[in-house]
């Protein structure tokens, strides 16, 4: 008898890259855009990440199903209250997405901020994959406004509690995310 609880979960993911070049025409205000000479086309790949059917908590996604009710959340509802509207607000201080120490099998982060921000800046999200002890130093992944990053964890070395995020600009920004064990 099915219970409604998932018996298997997975994430289908993909990447699509378009390297382009813009060449000034005879009239300098006219530019022609085409693929860069190499690769002379698009790049990309796709895959499937198998994740645990029993996630570490409702906070593994920053938002809810559009037909979901907060009363049905499995967590104590007042605790994961940072994402009431489905996004997490970031400042220049690093934020640990979860304290759960299980292996991270899939990570998706989208910068839902827009360009320009309040002061006219383009506010990027910075992501570190090796934080510990409440802070991180190697914020090596940059997610521009409306951009996203997704990756499959190696299943051993990347732990959920090692993922930290912050805004690169004092205007701050917001993200939506999935962090799955």
């Amino acid at each position, binding site marked *: 008898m099915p219970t409604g609880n998932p018996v298997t*979960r997975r994430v289908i993911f993909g990447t699509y890259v378009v*390297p382009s070049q813009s060449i000034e025409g005879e009239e300098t205000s006219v530019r022609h855009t085409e693929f860069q000479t*190499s690769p002379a086309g698009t*790049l990309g*790949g796709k895959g499937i990440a198998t994740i645990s059917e029993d996630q570490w908590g409702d906070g593994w996604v920053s*938002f*809810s199903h559009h037909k979901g009710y907060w009363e049905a959340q499995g967590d104590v509802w007042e605790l994961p209250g940072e994402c009431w509207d489905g996004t997490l607000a970031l400042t220049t201080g690093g934020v640990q997405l979860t304290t759960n120490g299980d292996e991270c099998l899939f990570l998706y982060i989208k910068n839902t901020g827009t360009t320009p921000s309040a002061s006219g800046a383009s506010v990027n999200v910075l992501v570190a994959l090796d934080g510990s002890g409440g802070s991180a130093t190697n914020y*090596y*992944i940059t997610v521009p406004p409306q951009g996203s990053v997704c990756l499959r964890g190696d299943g051993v070395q*990347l732990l959920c509690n090692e993922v930290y995020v912050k805004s690169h600009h004092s205007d701050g920004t917001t993200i939506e995310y999935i962090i799955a064990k």
Partner: protein
Amino acid sequence: MATTYKVRYKNHCTPQEQILDGGRWYLDSDCGRKLTGVNDESPTYAAPGTLTTGVSISGSAISIASSKDFVYVKNTGSTQVVISLTSDATAKYVIALAEGEAFASEISTLANVRVKTLSGTSTIEHFSQT
């Protein structure tokens, strides 16, 4: 005539769940939608990017990008490869790419992108932009 270069990229995903073993896959009930992000505006680069294909990967790590602003890596072989973004003594290989999978992101110029396999050999293609 000045030529400028850009990289537009999209990372997308679809979380799914099965309610019965071997049954139909549904959109995950905790998510309820497909997710995607496309960079609003690519930075403008002064030089073209560099694509390298058919790179052989083994258990000895090789660096494919340092002092770069954007990196794309695809596993074109059949053995899983793992990626590290740091070159610290304790650097961990935290990103995994199985056959056909790719990783693309803007990165810090401080990152040193290194790739290896945990066993066996594979091949990758990679593209980076400065």
